[in-house]
């Protein structure tokens, strides 16, 4: 079977800090990683490959440096990697992004497409279901466990208060949760091959069947009007005391605030 995994290179937002003077994000020195939900999706694709045999293609839309995320995917065990990159894709919202991804996916053979549920920089969770819609595929979101059963896939689909175990016929698209698994590390041999021997295929807008007014900023119905950082809440007082005094202080503060 053919599995295509969509991955996004994202800044590790747990490392992002706010500059208290300018109230802007400090982006320098923030490492780029494969988005965690996507990485779990990739891991599950590689596990299916190991158990049942499959061809795994990793695909990423982003700036040229996303090449690195794709090399990491190859080093983990993906067979092929495709980078979709073009200035014309810039400023795309989720609708334009999913349209571009779907155009790339429609050039590939797939039985299963896996995307992460959401990226940690945008947190929209929209690109997976929208991509499925463009391709006319069934989608199952929030997958916490997946199992291939012949021509079918069985997914444990997470909700806030329950799980639905769903079965559907392939091909389909699922969106993966980081809870799916613990992704493996790259192997030394994998790293060597990924960086020395394997190629990342590059597709630009002219390689895809897309209208220029349907992609990038032009193809995006949503427009960012302004962005701002929430002014940091003024910090209260910091105390460094003995445990006994610390506990007393907290109790005094709670009494002041009528909490106790």
């Amino acid at each position, binding site marked *: 079977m053919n599995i295509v995994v969509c991955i996004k290179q994202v800044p590790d937002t747990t490392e992002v800090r706010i500059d208290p003077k300018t109230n802007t994000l400090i982006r320098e020195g923030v490492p780029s990683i494969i988005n965690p939900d996507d990485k779990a999706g990739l891991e599950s694709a590689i596990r299916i490959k190991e158990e049942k045999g499959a061809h795994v293609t990793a695909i990423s839309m982003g700036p040229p440096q996303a090449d690195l995320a794709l090399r990491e995917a190859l080093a983990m065990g993906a067979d092929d990697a495709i980078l979709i990159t073009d200035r014309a894709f810039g400023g795309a919202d989720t609708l334009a992004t999913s349209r571009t991804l779907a155009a790339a996916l429609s050039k590939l053979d797939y039985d299963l497409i896996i995307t992460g549920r959401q990226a940690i920089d945008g947190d929209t969770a929209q690109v997976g279901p929208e991509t499925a819609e463009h391709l006319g595929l069934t*989608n199952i979101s929030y997958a916490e466990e997946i199992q291939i059963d012949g021509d079918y896939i069985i997914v444990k689909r997470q*909700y806030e208060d329950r799980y639905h175990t769903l079965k559907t016929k392939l091909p389909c698209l699922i969106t993966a949760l980081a809870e799916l698994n613990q992704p493996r590390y790259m192997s030394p041999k994998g790293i060597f091959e990924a960086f020395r021997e394997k190629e990342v295929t590059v597709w630009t807008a002219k390689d895809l069947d897309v209208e220029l007014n349907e992609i990038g900023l032009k193809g995006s119905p949503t427009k960012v009007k302004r*962005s701002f950082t929430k002014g940091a809440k003024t910090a209260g007082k910091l105390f460094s005391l003995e445990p006994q005094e610390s506990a007393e202080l907290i109790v005094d503060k709670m009494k002041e605030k009528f909490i106790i």
Partner: protein
Amino acid sequence: MNISEYKGIFVFAEQRDRKVQKVAFELVGKGKQLAKDLNTTVTAVLLGKDMKDEAEKLCYAGADKVIYVDDEILDLYMTEPYVYTLTHIILDKKPEIVLYGASAIGRDLAPRIACRLKAGLTADCTGLTIEPDDQEPEKLNLMMTRPAFGGNLMATIACPDTRPQMATVRPGVMQALKRSDANSVNIEEYKIEIPAEAVNVEILDVTRIIQQRMNIEEAKVLVSGGRGMHGPENYPMLEELAELLGGTISASRAAVDAGWVPKDRQVGQTGKTVRPNLYIACGISGAIQHLAGMEEADYIVAINKDPDAPIFNVADVGIVGDLHRIVPLLTEKILAEKEK
């Protein structure tokens, strides 16, 4: 597209187990506010089975009208039957705004509808207002504000050129209106034939996650533990303190990922947003993602060994010290206060 043809605010009224979910009432409340600025009405759309009494509740909560579709297929949420039905209703009624809860249902449903309608959709909004368009001031647009970059960058987004304008809205942020039995009940029972091929998944099993503890979104006091707890064996002391204060425990992502605490306790961007009266953060460094989920708490106490921990930037009282020694003493002293 003739934008002026689109009128009114629609709210998707999510149901589970044939009960309208809290977020739907919050959306009706917010919708009524927006409707005032647009001089229009709020319609709740409810899909389910045998739920007419619940449809009435939406009217009492402020909805001017409820569109109710009664169908066996819509009893349990499945993506395509819901997408099919709602898209049909939206194309038929042409609302200018459609709001969904940013839940595991809304965030699956809304993107597919947006894509089918070629409409803009903004995810997980925490603020909604109406503003005149920059170019055509007689045109009124929905301004949708949402957090990005793990929570500290806010972006305000508009869809000036397409209708409907759609948003998923974070649960717990908007205010529901008080129930008013004086409201008139206006329910349209909408008939639609859902094609058999729309049922493209089979539900093999439904498992409920049993909550033994109080829901963290409803707790007035949260005692929250992070990586600094060192292990699950140290959580009972937080439980004890929480119980004494009439609250419950919660956790940071680090503690949940380590498997010390179940996922339903997680506060933060990928967990839940909480606004208790008191939040005691124990051994939580305060990554942006965590702060985004708790900084609206009325009063924040943080205990952490590291004086540079970002949690101290949002804390009302910050204690640099060892939580493993301080928490038991704190419990002891509160107990003594209560016995006075």
